[in-house]
């Protein structure tokens, strides 16, 4: 009986302590990185459905940046398309033409300075050459983006672009497939607003409920997947910090480090 009383007292103390006001450590995840899947051109969700959550998880584990572990999807013609500065358009099949509502929604998004990653998940496994042809998704996505932003055209981003040093120092772009060394991008007003990846980044990130990677990387190896994850982290950091690593205070340091050894 005495023991039960002691236990009750201890339990009461624990409950009281738990009820004491403590510093709140989060304002929610509204301002966190959200790899929002863009639903447009007939897509019903990212081609690699689990990749977004893994992307956020990797970002949170590796960096100080907060991220939504349960990413959302948003339709291009939904007013909520302008609620955050990042969209991820992933697909593996040809897109249908964007509706006027989708075009208008995306134009609003870009007008506010938003960043869109077009991730081509339809690239074939054997397209490991340095200039593989984009899949039907990649081709149609470019066509539709050209309708949204008719006054611009993509340019290649080489390894000296800030996207390759926003967190990790990377020599080239890689995803589930090695693909081309560079990324293509539409730059408007000095800002990279649309990034075209022909590397199936989501394919390298996708991980099933069992913890196994959903897709093998091509040509293969843990290092390639690691480099793909690093590129995804860099994309997220670029979205959150823009060209922070191009600042003058970082330049001499990064030049020296570039001269040193990099991950093979």
């Amino acid at each position, binding site marked *: 009986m005495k023991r039960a009383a002691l236990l009750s007292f201890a339990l009461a103390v624990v409950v009281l302590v738990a009820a*004491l*006001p*403590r*510093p*709140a*450590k*989060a*304002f*929610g995840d*509204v*301002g*966190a*990185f959200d790899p929002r899947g863009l639903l447009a051109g007939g897509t019903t969700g990212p081609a690699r459905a689990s990749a977004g959550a893994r992307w956020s998880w990797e970002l949170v*584990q*590796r*960096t*100080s*940046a*907060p991220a939504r572990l349960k990413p959302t999807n948003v339709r291009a013609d939904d*007013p*909520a398309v*302008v*609620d*955050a*500065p990042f969209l991820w358009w992933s697909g593996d099949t040809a897109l249908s033409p964007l509706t006027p509502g989708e075009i208008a929604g995306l134009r*609003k998004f870009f*007008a*506010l*300075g*938003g960043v869109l990653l077009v991730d081509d998940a339809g690239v074939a496994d054997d397209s490991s050459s340095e200039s593989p042809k984009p899949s039907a998704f990649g081709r149609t996505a470019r066509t539709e983006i050209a309708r949204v932003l008719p006054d611009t055209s993509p340019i290649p981003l080489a390894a000296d672009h800030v996207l390759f*040093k*926003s*967190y*990790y*120092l990377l020599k080239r772009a890689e995803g589930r497939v090695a693909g081309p060394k560079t990324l293509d991008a539409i730059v408007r007003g000095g*800002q990279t607003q649309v990034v075209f990846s022909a590397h199936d980044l989501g394919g390298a990130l996708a991980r099933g409920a069992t913890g196994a990677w959903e897709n093998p990387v091509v040509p293969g190896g843990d290092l390639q997947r*690691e480099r793909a994850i*690093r590129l995804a982290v860099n994309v997220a*950091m670029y*979205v*959150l*910090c*823009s*060209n*922070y*690593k191009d*600042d003058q*205070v*970082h330049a001499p*340091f*990064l030049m020296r*480090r570039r001269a*040193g*050894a*990099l*991950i093979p």
Partner: protein
Amino acid sequence: MDTALSSRLAVNGDLPPWAAIAACVLVVLSLVVLVAHELRRRERGGLAIVATGVLAVAALLLAVLRPVRIAARESVIGAKVVVLADQSRSMALPQNGKDPRRDVEARVLERLAKESKSARLLTLGFGDGAPAPIAPATADGALRFSGASPPAALPRSDLTSALRALGASAEERPQAVIVVSDGRLDDPGEDASKETLTALGRELKVPIHTVGTTRSAPPDASVRRVSAAGAAVAHVPLPLRVEVGCAGGLSCDELTVTARELREDGPPALLATGLSHLKDGKGTVDLSVTLERAGARIIEVAITPPSGDTIPENDRRLLTFVVARERVRVLHVAGRPTNDVRALRQWLKSDASVDVVAFFILRTGSDAPNARQEDLSLIPFPVDELFTEHLPSFDAVVLQDFDAQPYGLEKHLPQLARYVKTGGGLIMVGGQNSFVAGGYAGTPLAEVLPVSLDSDRGATAADVANVTPAWTEDGKTAPLLAPLRDVVDDELPMMPGANILGDVRPGGLVLWSHPGRTTKSGQPMPILAIGDQGDGRSIALGIDGAWQLEFSQLGARTSGRGYGAMWDGLLGWLMRDPRFEPGQLDLASPCVAGEPAKLRVRAPDSAKDKPMTIEIRRLDQQDVATTKVEVPKSTSGATIDATLPPLPAGGYTARLKLGPGPTTRRDFACETGGDEWADSRPDGDRLRAIANASGGTFRWADEDLALPLPKPAVISAERHVVPLAPPWTWTLAAAALLGVHWFTRRRSGLS
């Protein structure tokens, strides 16, 4: 003007002058011939012939001239002579250690009035611009300047402008000018050429006489001139050339010169020091000063005077430099990258006038990047270097969602607080690592925030419930949020929680408040507050969702302009951009020690009915009590002049209070002598050169002041002409005398 009756003889008015002259010449020739011819003869009756001949010729001449008497009433008008008396402050310098030069000048003017009675003297004072009448004459006609209320001293001694104004005047031109001065003139300057001096009197075309009041220089060492190479720009070294001098028998081979900035919080900050080696009583030293804060700043340039210096007032100069800002240097420190950090960085980088140095914490100790250090682009956060060596070079520091503890900032918080109090700007932006959660409560930095922070253990750091900030009445009228209100009106996006902030501190103002949460005192909890902190300013923004002014439905409707408008106002207010000040404050005229000065106030319409006060605080003697001046209500217009009480020489800061919130600040300096006392030596040589160049005369005050002035003009007002005799009497007399002469000649045997 003197009037008198006069009387004189003249020839008849109907005779032309040439005829009278011809008659006289003929008479003289006749007499010469007569005398020469008759006196050579030794015969009887020669003298009688000559005598009667002379009388006859004279009578004949009078018959021709027919003289008249003219009686006239005449007026004598003296020539207009303008006396230009030096009214500059240098005339208040002591004369031989006793009376001021102004007293000597008064005695000179008195003597000139007595000794130049034939001239019409018009005494004008010169100094700055056109000359003006001075000091009305006393009952005895003497001009007196000394005594209880001397005329206001002028900050310049510009003789050239005074003479030019006389020449351009529509009034009667003077026929001579007399300049009474100590010779220490601003214009013409010490190095004026002879041509320049000659040109002074060219327009008036009259002689310029000069009278020097002072022969010898007082024993004095001084800062004679401070010249800056170009405009003062914040953070940019400004070269100063300081000219110093010793005169009056003082012995000084070298003088130490210091330049200090007068600051509101703390003692003056030494900016530069140098040693000037003097040759022939003059020396220069080049100093380089760097002013970190923009706006009106008071720099004290001073020497260490040698013993025997009799004028301590000019041992230091208080100079007001209006420091411009080429670019705003902002240190942006963020605890983690978020959408809010992204938005602020992009706004800062998009403004070409902002020079941003950013440090974001991209990796904490608990993060596992799964990479070697060499594979990361991360650099160490140079917290020590930033917050010690480089801190003064920033105009503003933004701490965004940044926890002070893990990165070693805690030890620099006192330094950061001092930085704010000495003129820096601080913005703390909310987030899960800000304010109480960031460990700032109870630290020196909390003392310079516009809101109080709860430092109790276990204090609640944040309210994570969604909140839409509410505009306060002050927020609705604050100029710094006017651009945002122009874009969004009353609407604000819903924010994901807010930091827990305490009551606003004295001098602060809440612009946004929490609609449902109160502080311990029961007031609505501040979300956005601003406040003055010593010489600097700070802002507390207790949310991390302001980025939704850009990315949200509201942002889409307003093209995202609300975010930039908000930060434009916040940073602009922090930098004292006049657009965002609650009022405007300027000096209406230069402040002279011991004389009332005027501050010009421009208040917004919303503040017209509020009580307005100006607080005057001494910068160089901070233990002196603050002076408060009530600003009179405006009867018309938006500008009000507030008269300050006479202030001693020194640096001051004036703060315009338009209510309980932050103030508008204006620094200014009051000097006793200013430029006019900087060089106390009289300059008789310059006065002599001016007189010589225009054909005038130079005299010292203790010499004879009977100057060669123009003669007066005579004007007849009334005239009476009366013949001395009727014309026939002259003719009859001439005929009779000619007959007598003919008879005398016949008796002497002449035909």
